[in-house]
Every structure is written in C-alpha cells, then in structure tokens.
C-alpha cells in the first residue's frame, strides 16, 4: 500500500463517528520515539485514532511507518512518550504494569503473524490459556474451549500440538486464543502474511464472525489488499502520521457508515 493512494482516498469520518458508540480504544495526539540523542527516531508523531465496537480496522503503511508501534500502544504493550491512550473510556496512560497486564488479560486479544502458539501446549491448552490466567474454573474452561474449537472447525485437533497442524490451522488456534475471553479489542499483526489466499480468506471470515457474534473490534496491521478490502475501515500511516482513514466494506450486521472515509484531522 502506498501513502499517495491512501491520501487520495482520504475523506473525514468525524461526523459519522460523533454518532457512534464510545471507542474501545482511543489514541489522542500520541508521540513515540526510539533511541536517544542523534539516533532518536520518531515512530509516531501526534497520532490520533479510535476504534469503535464492531469495527474491523485495517492499518496499512510501508515498513517502518509506525504500524507496529501503533499496535503496541493500542495493545497496552508499550506507553506513549506523549499523548493519551484510553481503553473503554478509561485513561490507560501511566497505568502500572500490573494494571496494564490485567486490562490486556480481560479486554484485549492478540493475533501474531507467526502465530506465537506455545509449542508444548496442545491446541486445546493454547486456547485455554487466557481462561487459566483469569482463574476460570475447569468445567467452564472446558465448555468454552470446546465451543471455540467447534466454531473454529478444529474439534478433532484439540489434542494436537501446534507443530502437528498446518499454518492455517495454527492461525485459527491463535484467533481462538485471542477470542476465548470475548475481548473488546483484538490486535492482529499481519495475521494472513504467512498463509495462502484460501486460508487467509478463512481467517478473515473468522474475524468477521467474531465481530458479528461477540461484538469484538479488530485493529489489523496488514499488507494484504484482500484483507484490507474486507475491513470496515482502512487507516493508512506514513512516517509516523496517519495519512488517511476511509471506510471499507460495512461492518457485519451493521448499517453502512454515513459519508465517505478520509484522513482525520
């Protein structure tokens, strides 16, 4: 995706968003730099972004544009140098590490490009892990994981280990792990990058299903045009600044957005 085309597509969404529900995650004038002195590199320069419930937001931009930094801030994996991060209306800036961890545990799911499944755990156990962290009792864990396995079409693979299943199946497990706690927000970093197009389509379908069934919101960093094309909103970032914010296909089961999309002020 190139920045010029993003810019060309940019139309403001402010009007439509004013009427929408409170954002699940909201970044306000966020700055983030790495290094120090002469080697200091600004990764984000005053970025403002919010993701509302039920949105599937694709984050596009060239390598080094600040996508991962933005995802990390939205996922409460790091903190901004300046600006504010709000999760479900609560200002998460300056939260303690413990508070951030507990917030991630309850409200945020993660899907990684390389799946990042725990190799010694079975498929069942990988999906179960977030429930274990939350102290869900054994019977409820079992019930929820079995339901998730059925939803993912992995009922027969529960006892397999990650290295015994295909890449597509692994990513489905990763999505199952991200969704098992019914998070408010799922952060996905290039979730289809290592998958063939048919499998990638299945993964995108799963995400749409999660939005429909669980009301989850997705913020997805992707280079995949097919994936971006099926997101409800596409945000482009370049050199640490958002350069466009446009609507894509309508949210599953939601009325179409009012107006066209574009760069936000």
């Amino acid at each position, binding site marked *: 995706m190139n920045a010029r085309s993003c810019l060309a597509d940019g139309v403001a969404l402010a009007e439509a968003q004013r009427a929408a529900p409170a954002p699940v995650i909201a970044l306000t004038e966020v700055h983030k730099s790495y290094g120090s002195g002469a080697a200091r590199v600004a990764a984000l320069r005053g970025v403002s972004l919010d993701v509302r419930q039920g949105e599937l937001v694709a984050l596009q931009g060239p390598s080094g544009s600040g996508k991962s930094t933005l995802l990390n801030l939205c996922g409460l994996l*790091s903190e901004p140098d300046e600006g504010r991060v709000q999760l479900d209306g609560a200002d998460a800036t300056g939260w303690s590490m413990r508070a951030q*961890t507990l917030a991630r545990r*309850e409200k945020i799911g*993660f899907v990684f490009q390389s799946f990042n499944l725990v190799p010694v755990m079975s498929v069942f156990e990988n999906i179960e892990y977030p429930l274990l962290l939350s102290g869900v009792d054994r019977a409820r864990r079992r019930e929820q994981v079995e339901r998730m396995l059925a939803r993912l079409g992995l009922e027969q693979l529960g006892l397999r280990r990650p290295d015994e299943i295909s890449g597509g199946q692994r990513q489905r497990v990763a999505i199952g792990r991200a969704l098992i706690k019914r998070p408010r927000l799922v952060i996905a970093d290039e979730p289809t990058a290592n998958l063939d197009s048919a499998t990638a389509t299945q993964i995108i379908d799963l995400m749409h299903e999660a939005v429909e069934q669980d009301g989850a919101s997705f913020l997805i960093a992707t280079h995949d045009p097919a994936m971006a094309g099926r997101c409800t909103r596409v945000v482009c970032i370049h050199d640490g600044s958002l350069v466009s914010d446009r609507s894509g296909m309508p949210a599953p089961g939601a009325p179409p957005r009012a107006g066209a999309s574009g760069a936000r002020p």
Partner: protein
Amino acid sequence: MKALLYAIKNVQRNRRRSLITLAIAAVGTAAVTIGGGFALYTYDSLREQAARDSGHVIVAARGYFDHDEEKPMQYGLSDYPSLRNRLLRDERVRAVLPKVQLSGLISNGDKSAVMIGSGVDPAGEFHVKGPFLKVLEGDVLTPHPEPGSTPEVLLGADLARSMNAHVGSGLTLMATTTEGTLNAIDVTVNGVISVGVPEVDKRLVLVAVATAQSLLLTDKISSLAVHLKDTGQTEAVAAELRDLGATFSVQTWQDQAFFYEAVRALYNRIFGLLGAIIVLIVAFAVFNTIAMAVVERTREIGTLRALGALPMQIVRDFALEGLVIGAAGSILGVALCALASVGFGLLGVQMPPPPGRSVGYPLHINLNAILFLWTVLLVIALSALAAWFASRKAAARPIVEALAHV
C-alpha cells in the same frame, strides 16, 4: 496443577540438556546422601564403640571423675554389689560390669614394660564388647576359672610382641597397692587382642576383676559400667542415677568419648562444606539450564505477557521447571545412594584405617530418611530458587522487546 504439567512439558523440550542437568542434580544428591550416610554410620559406630568401651553410664565414687588418685583406688567404689543388683533389675539395662583400673609393669623375666590395664568381668565384658574387640590369638578370659589356677591375662597385640608372649606364656604383673607397697602376681597369657589403636595395643592388659583386686590388695572397684539396650536411654538412666546417689558420681559415655566428639565435629565440617559446594553446583547447573531456556523462549515469554500473564506468573512457571528438575534429580540421587549402599555392602568394600588406628572398617552407608528428606528438599528449593533467579529479569523485560526477540 496445570502449571506443573506445563513445567514438566517444558522440561522435556530440550531433553538432552534437561537430562544432563537432572543427572548433575542426581549425582549431587547421591554424593551428599552417600557422604552424609557414611558420616552417620561413622557416628553410630563410634558411639557404639565408645558406649561399649566405657558403658553407656559410668558410676564411680565421688571424686573419681574430678580428681587424680594419689594412690590406687583412693576413689574406689566399695559398696557396689547392691547398686549393681538394683541396676540389673532395670529392664533398660543390658549389663552392669565392674572395672578396676590399674597401671604398673609387666615382665617376662628378661624384660619389663609399662602396662595400662583393666580388671574386667570375664563373664560379661567380652559378650558386651562383641565385634569391637578383635582376638588375634587364643581366647578371651575364662569366665569361671578353676580355683587355684594361675590367673589369666589378655595382652594387647603390640605388648605381646614386645614381651615375646604367646598363649600359655607366663608373665608377672607388678603394681603399687592401695597401701603404697609394691605387689606382683604371676599370670598366664590366655589371648592376644587388638582394639585397633596401636598406642593402646602397646600397653593394654586385661585381667579378671578378682585378679586386679588381688594385685592391688583391695576389694573395691574403680567404676561400674552400665550397658543399656538402647543408647537413646542414656540420659534418662544417668539422670535417675544422679537423683539416687549421694555417695557416687555419674557420667555418660559422651562425657568420656572425646574421640567421638572430635570425629563428629571434623566430619560435620568436612561433609557439611562438601555438601554445600555440591548443592551449589547443582543450583548453578539448574540456573544455567533455565537461563538458556529463558533466552530461547524470550518471544514466548513476550507472548504470554501480552496475553495477560504477570511477570510473577512467568517466574513461577520457570521456578516450577527448576523444581521439577530438582525433584526428579534428587529423588534419582536418593535411589542412587540406596543402590550404592547395597552395592558397597555386597562388594564388602573396606575403608583404610583412620589416623591412629591399625585396622580399617567396612564402608557402609546409613540410609537415613531424615537425611534424604532434607537433602531432597534442599536440592528442590535451591533448584527452584536458581530458576527463579534466572528468569526474573526476562519476565520483567518490556513485552515489545521480548516479542521482537529472534
């Protein structure tokens, strides 16, 4: 429970490395328990030997333990038969043996040597001493010699060699009597013995109590040695005797077992230091293994942290892995120790004579449940602690850095 299951699975990830660490823990534990078991056996043996030499409880006249006698039997015990009979009625008591200490000269007619001897009860003394007295030649003293026969004597091996004496040889014992005069009696060698200490074997003479009394011209004895069925009852019996006696003093075998205490202090330090070093080596091995695992699993740590695991939970998981390695290794080590104990027994492995002794002793490892339990707990605790130490930094590392780790 799940965390423990994952810990076991994680330990199996790099089997070779885990097995090596486990082997170090096993060998370390085996070394500690074998060393400890050997020390305990030595303590037991020395305790038994000391108790059999002196009796568990020693009763003597007042002043005997505290003062040097200006003349023989100055602090002798005269009214001992009633006390002896009373003690023999106690179920805890195995034997009550009178002793007469004497010193003087022994002569074969051509040559004289200094002797340090004891008058003992032939009927009970050698039965109680059992394996702690080695008869090299002849036999022990006859319990009930024929009236009018020449008194018998047992000589220490080195003294017998010095006197050129053998079984049947006639010798003369000379000593100062209780009245301060010199007395002598003729004796016949009935046996040659060794207590395993050359310095003692060079001077040792054993005769019957009656023989010693006739040499010293007394009807007193030096002390009564009370031998118990259970060494653990020593303090109780001694305390009861102290309560009884206004006319006599009481000591326990421990009061007289200077060698036992010295060896125990020495072994405690040697085996304690070696044990500490070995356990530290085990801890370092576990630390190294977990540290390598932590580096390899940095990205996984980042993933788990992203999913909502607290650093404390990550550290706990690694500590559990250390615990699994420590537990498996230490239990295997205890099994190795038991195997070694049986093996040494079957092979009849002998230890060389310790300093100051002339005979070795069998290498035996005491299988002591308390020693095993403490060693296993120590190895487990240190392994878990080492793993905790190895993983605590990585668990607190920024998640973004951990996820980017290659």
